[in-house]
Each structure stands twice: as C-alpha cells, then as structure tokens.
C-alpha cells in the first residue's frame, strides 16, 4: 500500500544535476535529500556511478525516472525494470517514481512524456502495469502528473479523476507536480484550484515544484528559472490539503549556481512551514482567487521564444571531454 503515511517525509530536496557535482561534493551543503534521474545512473561504471557513490556517502537519494513508458503499446521493458531495480538496491531509495505518460510505439522511444487520453482503457492499462512495476521493484511506486500541450477528443474525464482512479486501482503513490498543474491549467483552460482539490491527497508521496516558461499561447514546463509566486501559492495550498510531504525543487535548464538553488530550497522550507502552520490552525494562507487571477493575467503578457524542454537536465557524457595522450 503506497500512501502518504506509508512513506517517510524527507523534508526539502533538490534535483542532483551535473553542474553542481563539484560544489555538492566539496561543500556538502545541508539538504534533506537529492532526487536523481534514474536513467542517468543506469550504467555500469565511470563518472556517473562514481559521483553517485560520493553523494550517497552524505545524502539520501530518491529515484525519479523519465523513460519507463507505463502507458505505451509495449509497456515497460523487463530489462529496463531489472536495471532500475538494481540501481534502487544501491541507492536505498525509499520509493521510485516515473510519469503518467507514454514514450513511444513500435519499438521507437521518443524520449518525451506524451500525454495519455483519460479513458477507461488507459486507466486499466496504466493501473495494471503500475501494480506489476511496484511488485517487481519491491518498493513503493509513484506516478507523476505531467505538463501537456494537447488534449484528446477521446478523454472522458478530467485529469484529476484519471490520476485518482489509477492510483487507487493500482494502490500506488502520486507524485504531485504543482508546477505541472499550473502549466496544464493554463494550456487547457482548467481551474488549478479545482485540479488540486480533485487529486487524492492521501496518495501523495512527494511534491515537485519548478520554474516554467511562458511562450505566449502556452506555457512550457522547462524547469528553468525560479519558481513563480502563483506556483508557490498552489504549493502551499497543496501542503494545506495533504500535510507534510517530501518536496523537491526541479531546475533543469539554464541551471544556476548551487547557492541560487539552495536559496530556492530554503524558500520551499519556509513556504512549507507557513502552510503547515495554517493547516494546524485550520486556516489557509492562500488567496485562491489571486491564483486564478494570476493565471488569467498571463494571457497577453510578453512571452519568450520557445526554448524547448529536456526532462532531467543534461546527462554526464563523454562528448564534452577531450582526451589526452597517455604518458
């Protein structure tokens, strides 16, 4: 059974990203946990594994994946799951997560988080597979709501109902990405407050918050830049509903100095404390109307050119390294 009460609250963490390795390993700043992109470490050796081992000396690590493909025609590959599980044994991750999405068909992997139609067929497919994944990994498993840039005619329910049905039937956790609620609400004309009220609060095992990029007609979940005020509002609203739950800052594009990221984690800590205090008093710290108004006000505001997106930031790779002649 994967619910908020069956996994630990780790506090506030950040995504472990290549440009910060040095700063993290030299300074070992106080952080409750790091989240890693599992695929970047599902390799047998070399620098990625070396750096991960050094991080594990000091920090708790939570695994988050982008390539499981829970919803495509083929479904998760057994080889992928085997390697994922082997990595999970080494990191000691308290849970493993991926996304409500599909990644390709006919043997092609598109390396994107493509939206699913919200249909009974998709619920059945995803929940059956999610249950198998959780049993195979022998760890709590959670799926994350994604940002999306299209909606299907075949969808017969709102996204929050789909998330609820799958997590309940599969008995898995929900990784709630608050920024993705904001992005999808803007892109599809949804009410973010209603979205948040519709999710199964007791299933939330982790929260993501991130920056996004407004390109005019739509917002892209770029994980670039600081978290914007209305997303912090939504985050506090989520904490007021859910209670204390592990929170993670995602910053994958135009990655800033480590100190900027650490300051963002501090901000998350204080937003979380503020929301928990309001919850304890039975009050709210959020003006829901202001959140709705901020979303509406975005239409017509100046936008930037489409910068593209890449889940999980850069890989640590061989391409940037020149090699020298051995002595």
């Amino acid at each position: 059974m994967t619910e908020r009460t069956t996994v630990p609250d780790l506090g506030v963490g950040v995504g472990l990203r290549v440009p910060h390795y040095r700063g993290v390993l030299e300074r070992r700043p106080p952080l409750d946990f790091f989240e890693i992109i599992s695929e970047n470490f599902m390799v047998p050796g070399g620098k990625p594994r070396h750096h991960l081992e050094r991080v594990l000396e000091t920090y708790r690590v939570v695994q988050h994946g982008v390539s499981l493909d829970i919803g495509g025609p083929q479904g998760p590959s057994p080889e992928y799951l085997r390697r994922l599980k082997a990595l999970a044994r080494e990191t000691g991750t308290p849970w493993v997560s991926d996304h409500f999405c599909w990644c390709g068909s006919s043997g092609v992997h598109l390396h994107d988080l493509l939206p699913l139609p919200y249909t009974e067929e998709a619920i059945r497919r995803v929940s059956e597979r999610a249950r198998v994944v959780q049993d195979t990994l022998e760890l709590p498993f959670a799926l994350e709501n994604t940002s999306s840039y299209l909606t299907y005619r075949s969808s017969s329910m709102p996204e929050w109902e789909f998330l609820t049905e799958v997590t309940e039937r599969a008995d898995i956790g929900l990784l709630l990405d608050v920024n993705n609620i904001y992005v999808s609400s803007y892109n599809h004309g949804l009410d973010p407050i209603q979205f948040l009220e519709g999710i199964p609060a007791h299933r939330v095992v982790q929260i993501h918050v991130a920056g996004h990029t407004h390109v005019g007609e739509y917002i892209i979940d770029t994980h670039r830049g600081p978290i914007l005020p209305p997303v912090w509002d939504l985050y506090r609203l989520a904490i007021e509903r859910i209670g204390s739950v592990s929170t993670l800052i995602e910053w994958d594009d135009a990655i800033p100095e480590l100190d900027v990221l650490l300051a963002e984690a501090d901000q998350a800590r204080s937003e979380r404390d503020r929301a928990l205090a309001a919850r304890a008093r039975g009050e709210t710290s959020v003006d829901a109307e202001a959140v709705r108004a901020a979303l509406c006000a975005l239409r017509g505001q100046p936008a930037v050119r489409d910068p593209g997106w890449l889940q999980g930031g850069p890989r640590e790779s061989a391409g940037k390294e020149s090699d020298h002649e051995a002595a």
Partner: protein
Amino acid sequence: MSELDRLQDFISAALRRRRDLSRDPVIVAQAEREIHATSHFSPARHLEIYREQFWLRHTQSLLEDFPGIAGILGQSDWERLVEEYLLAQPPASFSLRDLGEKLPAFLESADFLPQRELVLDMARLEWAHIEVFDAPALPPLAPESVATLDEEALASARLLLSPALRLLDLSYPVPELRNRLLSAKGSLVDLPLPEPSPTRLVLYRRELSTVHCRLRRAPFTLLEALSRGVSLGNACEAACALGEREAASVEREVATWFADWVARGFIVGVR
C-alpha cells in the same frame, strides 16, 4: 489493435516526420479526429509542439556525443546527417546515451556526405568514447597470476581485456582533430583537415578520465588478437606474421609491452 494503440502509433509516426505537420492533409485530418482544437491552435499545431521537440532533443543529444563529426561537417551537412540517421535509425533505447550506437555503421553507406572516411573515423572514436566513459571498472590483473605459469601454459593462456578499453584501427589522426574542434567550440571553418595517416589507438579509462595511446602495428595486432580471445601464443604469431621487422620487434619487446599493458590496467584476467 486497441483504440489506444492506434492513437499512439499515429502520434509516434507523426512526431518523427521531418516537416511541419500542418502541411500534410492526411495528418491534419487525423489530428482533427483525435485532438481538440483550441482558440489559438489547430489540432495539428498542438502535435507540432511535440514534433519540434523530438527533433530538437535528439539533434542536441547527438551534437553532445559527436562534436567532432559536427565540427568536420559544418552546420548544414551535420543537420542533413542527423535527419537521415534519425529517419533510418529511430531512437529505440530508453537512454539517449545509446542514440548514436548505430551511427558508425550508418556512415559506412552515407554516400551523400563529404569527407566520409574522415567522418567515419571520427564516429568510431566518438562512439568508443561513449562506451569507455561509463563501462564497468574491473581491477587490473595481478602480475603474480601470470608469473607462476610455465611457458606452455603462458602460450595457451587467453587474456581478458578491460571492458573500459577500445581498440581503434583508423586511417586518420582523429584524436588531435577532435581536441582542436572541442577547444574551438564549434567554430571550425578554418581548421585544416588532416591528411590520412594510419592511426592505431587504445582508448581507455585511467582513474575516471578517458585517455588514449598510440600503438605500432605489431603490438596493436597482438592486443587486437587478444581482445578477440585468441591465445597469447597465437596472438604473438599473428603479430610476427606481419613481417620480419615486426617479428623481431615482438621477440625483443613483448615482455615490455606486457608490463606496460598490465600497469595501465588493460589486462584484467587470465583464463
């Protein structure tokens, strides 16, 4: 095939199309059946957001892994290569790390490219870099484990080479070119391209960094035979068969080569 499978096959194929989807009436019509229009975008335009990302993401990933090829070709030939490659070999692995695995083989028949032999050598080197980068690290052979073997046992011994090592028999001196291109950060137009010259390399990992060393023909032939599981005796014979000069050099230097290879961690086991 289920409704969901059909929808996903349609989208998966559409995203790999090279041109703007709104120009293809068949796709436009099917997108209209499957995807909602919004006040700002048609269904095909919504799909187009994802299609652009497919090409951006995979082009970027290949550029990160093969900066040397991109440097030799320049922008327009590089883009053509990426396009033809991704159409012929769509990404299949869960990891972008594997995206270029079939690029060297693809280049063998990529007749449309200038400098194809040079590009092919660069592809072999850059793919070897990727393989060596995250290969497992095995402890090097302890010299004692061969010291106890008598001459006959030594001749029939098969040596296990490090998985973090690649042997490359190339026609161009590409490591130097790649380093120059990397330090020029993409502004390559004026770099003189090298003339052919036989380049036999061992690319391997020392600590965590990838380094290479050049080998003469005889030691390269010997090491290459060992990598294929040939016994030590037969590998030496293969090197001696190259010619009188090589045979003399094997005779004279083989012990030195071995000591060096063991010290560099090339050899990790003996069977």
